[in-house]
Each structure stands twice: as structure tokens, then as C-alpha cells.
């Protein structure tokens, strides 16, 4: 069973996503802010990280950049979740090192597709 780290500060979004992912068979670990997200990434070593961008303490770009620069977390695929849909955000995401990018409001099916994609690639 794969582990997904969900870094999201909004309680309802966190709750929804966690339960839906669990129903799909994932083990879900949650963090409520950027710092906690960073800590948990190192301690839990998840198979994939879903990173909300607007976070307290440290925003999603920074956490992503950090994790991608640290040896033991570099390999973990990260999907950025953002409320904005500007092309500049897409660029920023990939520039920070994200592997994928999705916009809110989330289309769960679409998100699942991206998750499965990344996990399959990783495995192979």
C-alpha cells in the first residue's frame, strides 16, 4: 500500500481528500503547514506528496524546492495543488521542481489519473 503525504491547511479539503484517497486504498499522512509538511516528508518518506501552495509557515514552492534539494527526499514525486490557473503558476510549479500540477476545484478523477501516472513511473 502506497503512502501519500497531503500538505493542506484547509480542514475541509484535507478531510475530503484524505477520505477519498483512503477509499482508493492509499495510506494518507497529513500536514497542516509547510514546516510540518517538510518534517513529515523526511520522517515518513511517502511515495507521493500532494502539496497545496498557499500554506502558512512556509509556502508550497519553498517546501518543494527544499525537498527537491535534499538527498533523501529528492526522488519523491510532488503534485502541486493551486487555486489559481494562470500559466505563470504552471511555470512556477515546474520551476520549483514539481512533477505535476493540478488546479482547484479538484476534479478527483483527474487527480487520480495524475497520481497513478506518477506512481507507475516511479515503480518502473
Amino acid at each position, binding site marked *: 500500500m502506497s503512502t501519500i503525504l497531503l500538505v493542506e491547511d*484547509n480542514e*475541509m*479539503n484535507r478531510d*475530503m481528500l484524505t477520505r*477519498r484517497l483512503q*477509499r482508493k486504498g492509499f495510506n494518507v499522512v497529513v500536514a497542516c503547514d509547510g514546516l510540518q509538511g517538510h518534517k513529515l516528508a523526511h520522517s515518513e518518506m511517502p511515495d507521493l506528496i500532494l502539496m497545496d501552495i498557499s500554506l502558512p509557515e512556509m509556502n508550497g514552492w519553498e517546501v518543494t524546492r527544499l525537498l527537491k534539494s535534499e538527498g533523501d527526499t529528492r526522488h519523491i514525486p510532488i503534485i502541486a495543488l493551486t487555486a489559481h490557473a494562470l*500559466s505563470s503558476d504552471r511555470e512556477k510549479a515546474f520551476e520549483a521542481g514539481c512533477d505535476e500540477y493540478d488546479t482547484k*476545484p479538484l476534479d*478527483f478523477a483527474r487527480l487520480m489519473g495524475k497520481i497513478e501516472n506518477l506512481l507507475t513511473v516511479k515503480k518502473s
Partner: protein
Amino acid sequence: MKLQNLSIKRKLMLITMLTSTVALLLFSASFLFYDLISFRHFLSQDLATQAEIIGYNSAAAMAFKDEAAATVTLTALKAKEDITAAILYTPDGKAFTRYVRANIAAPSLVENQPKFEGIRFRNSYLEVVHAVSLNGEPVGTLFLQSDMSQWNTRAKRYAIFLLVFMLASDLLALLIASRLQTLISGPILRLEDTMHMVSAQKNYEVRALKFYDDEIGRLIDGFNTMLSEIQQGDSALQSANDTLKAQTLELESEINQRKQAQDELLSAKRTAEDASRAKSSFLANMSHELRTPLNAIIGYSEMIEEEIQDTGQFQNVQDVKKIQSAGKHLLSLINDVLDLSKIEAGKMGLHLENFEVAQMVQEMVSTFQPTIAKNSNKLEVSLAEDLGQMRADVTKVRQILFNLMSNACKFTNHGTVSLDVERNTTGNRQWLQFRVSDTGIGISPEQQKNLFKEFAQADVSISRKYGGTGLGLAISYRFAQLMGGYFTAESEPGKGSVFTVHLPAKVTSDAVEAAKAKETNGAQAEAPQPVSQADTILVIDDDPAVRDLMFRFLVKSGFNVVVAADGEEGLKLAKRVQPRIITLDVLMPGIDGWEVLRRIKADPELSGIPVIMVTIVDNEIMGLNLGSSSYVMKPVDRALLTDLIEKHRKGRPSNIADVPVGV
């Protein structure tokens, strides 16, 4: 004290004195001289005569050698004071008898006869030697000597007299001169005083008094003339100065006003900027705030649906689906409203990027399959070969296409939805053309009027039946405009509809700015690139969509276009611009098209301009009676309109009844 620097008065007096003194002196001197000379002559004559008389008187005595008698005769000379000596000589030259005036030193008395005859002046004595004779026989010689005392006395007297006379005359001359010199110096001194006064007081109104009409008088005249001129100059200067002061004050007050206005403007600007920032942050916040709870509603309801499906409670599934559907509808309404608010506030920006057109379309199309299938429709996509790249706001282009496609799908059942994409060049710019056509229910002419307006979905029942917010087309329309493009729509109820969006292949920020400005100022567009030689067409229509359509279409056809939103404005513009042709909408607020037409035909400046009525009102006859050149019904058949315009441009007679065929 130099003589030249003496005062005029002194000079004049000095001149007079000098002149009169010199004259008197000359006169006196010559008079004296003449007089004394002639007196001397007289004296000598007189002495000579005396010598003769005495000689005559003593002739007898001499002849008879009567010394006593001779001496008596000589002594008689005592009576003559000036005779100093008288000596008679015998013929052999010896002194016979003599007389010498008392108390006189007998100077050069010679015993012997002096050896001359006649008169002589010697040592300030006058001497005469006269030969005495009796009856023609010389009996002796008489020597008479006189001192010049008479002469001296006379000389002295005369000299003193003349001196006194001269002095007296001089004095008199002085007096007269001192009185009369005022004739000359007076005016001059007055002039001098006047001059001092003028220069000391800077009073140029003063004038010097003119006394006499001589050179000085003329000098004074000249001086006065000069003063007048100075006075004029001075008063002109004064008034110029005053004007300058007044103007400076005016300028200052204007500057102050401007400064004030500037300050007001600056503060208004700051207020506007603050308001603008407030708007932006409001929109951003609202955007986020509104969407967040909706996401929860939609998300949770989806979750519940999934969980319920597992447990097989299908009744509940339907309920949950309804919640979802309402939530989703609400979300799209909110998105649309927020989009429109942003556009209205002028805050909708463009994020331009280059992308492959064909690729973008194909990605989109693939997401459409489910929607197509929903109404059992067929999808036909035709992409031209040369679509290449486009520079635009992808998200917006996608949104427009999505809107058109979903409309087409919504309003078509068991039909065909086609998407055609082409690239073409119009008026030295490249355009991408996206055409979505369907074989659906179509749109009635009435409904076409409100097509791109907000909240004007054909009618309420449609909205309920087919869903949708009614805002999609309005937003798509604005998005197209923002990017410098435009929309066209054609439809026939029952047959289907064709929506085409034309977008520049290279959207620029200029187009954005211009479009934004149009957005916030209302539609008062003028041709962006006026073709000066082209004819001008004036479009009068209250519907901004129609104005815009006509504008775009006519510009594409190569005309200069000006637009007006109502009759009054239209008439004003017509007079100013003198267009070649006027297109006129009938149904307008304010004065309606018929009235405008009447006024155009009544105005000599405008009556020659052909007018094409463009309207949905079927009143052709009225139009032709009033002298409208032609009559076209909305929705406008562009080909027909072009034909009409061409006809009228070429100046064929008006009043052609072109029966319209609305598509």
C-alpha cells in the same frame, strides 16, 4: 572762474558792457585824438597869427630901433598866459628886446636868432619865427614861444570828461543790460527750472512756458514736444506695466487654480487607485471565499455518492446527485459572475503565451466526448493545415471554445456539432477563425438581438430546460474583444446556428488596452488605423454589440468607421465627419431612427448622404417615403449590406427597394 561757465545773465551783461565800453572807448579816443590834433593845429595857427600881429605892431619900432616901444608891445603879451617868451631880433640876428613870462626859467632862449622860420614844436613848446617887415623891408625877426598849457589843459579836461562820460554810459548800459538780459536769460532760466522740476518729480505733465517766438521759444517748443512724447511713452509704459501686473496676477491666480486642480486630480487619482486596489482585492478575496465552501459542498457530495454507491442505496444517490448538480451550477454561476465583474472593473488581464493551435483544440475536443454523447450528437472537427502557432491568452481561448461547444451540444439533439478552425489574412493581419456550428434549435431573430448581452438567455424556460447561466456568451464576447477579436453569429430557428469567433493570431497588449478602454468607456470606437483615403461610414445604433459587429465588418471591408450610440450623437458626428454613407437603426432611445432620418434629410449639409436603415421593424414603406436610401433588416446579411454600400458608394439613384432576406 572760467569765463565760459559764467551764467547767461553775467555773460550777457559782460558782453553788453564790453561792447559798449569798447565802442565808447574807441569813440572817445578817436574824438580826443582828432580834437587834440586840430587844436594843436589851431594853436599853431593862432600863434602864427599872433606873431603876425605883433610883428606888424612892432615893425615901426624895429625900423626906428625904438627899444622901448618894442618892449611895450611885447609886454602886452602878458595878457596871453600861454606865451612864454617873445624875442625880437634885429636883422643881423641879435636879440633886440624880449619878453619872458614871469617865473619861467628862460630855457633855450638863444641870444641869436634861431635858424628856422615858421612854426615848430620843440621840447613841448610851440615856437614861431616870423619875419617882421615895414613896407616890404625886413626890419627884424620875431620869435614867439608858447607852452602847450592850453593844449594840455584841454587834453586833460577832455580826457576826464570823456572818462566820466564813459563811466556814466557804462553804468547806464549796465542798468539797461541787466533789465533787458532777462529777455534772453529769463526764458532760459525758467526752462531750466522746469527741467529740474520734471526730472526731480518725474512729472511729465508739466510744460515749459513759452515767452517769445524766437529761437528760445522754439527751443521751448521742442522741449515741450519732447516732454509730451516722454509723457506718452511714460504713460504707455505705465499702462503696459499695469497690464503686465494684472496679467501676472491673472496668471498667478490661474496657476494657483491649476495647482489646486492638479492637487484635486492627484487626490482623486489616489482615491481612484485606492478604490481600484480595493476592487481587485475584493474580487480576489470574494473569488476565494465564494469558491471554498462550494468546493466543500461539491466535494463532500461526491464522496457521499461514492460511499452510497458502495452500499447500494440508490435512492439516496439521486438525492446526492441533485446536491452536486446544484452545487456545480452555483459554482459556474459564481465563476461567471466573478469573471464579468473583473471585466467590468477593467481588471481582467491577459496572460499571453505562444501555443500550437491544433494541439490546443485537440486537447479540448477530447474532453468534450461525454458532453457530445449526452444528447446523442455527432462531433465533426475540421482543422486547416496551416494553423500554426498563436499568441494569446490560452485559458480564455479555451473558455470561449468550451462555451461555444457546450452551447452547441446543449441546444442540439441527435444532430451534428462541427468545429472548423481556419487561419486567414485580412487587412495585413493574420487571424484565427474558430467556427462552431450545430443543427440544433437555432435562435429566433428576436433572441438574436440579445445574444451577447448578459442574463439574456433566450427565455427563462430555456435556461431551466437546458441549463447554463446565460452569461457564457457575454463573457466569451468580452474575452474576444479584450484580445482584439470579434464574434459573429448566424442562426435560423429550427435549422441550427453558427457562431464564429475571430481572433488575431498575435494578440498584443495594445489591443488589450484599447479593448479595456472601450470596455470602461462604452462603445465610442473610432477606426484604429484610419485609412485616410477610404470612405467613412457612420453607424448609428444603440446596441453596443451591433455597433461593434458593424464596425469590425466594415473596417475589414476597408472603410473608415465612426459610431454613435444615439440619434443626437449621430447627427452631431454626421455634421462633423460628413460620412459617405450612414447606417441607421430605427429602434433607439431618445430620438428614434425615423426622426433622425427626417432631420438628416432636412439638413442641407447632410441631405445628400445616403442612409441605410438597419432595423428589425418592418416598415419599409415609411422608410422609402422619408428618403432613406435603403432598408435592411436585422440580423444583417453582410453580403447584402456590402452590396448596398457599394451601390450607394457608386452613386446609383437611391430609393431602391431591396427586399431583405433574414438568415
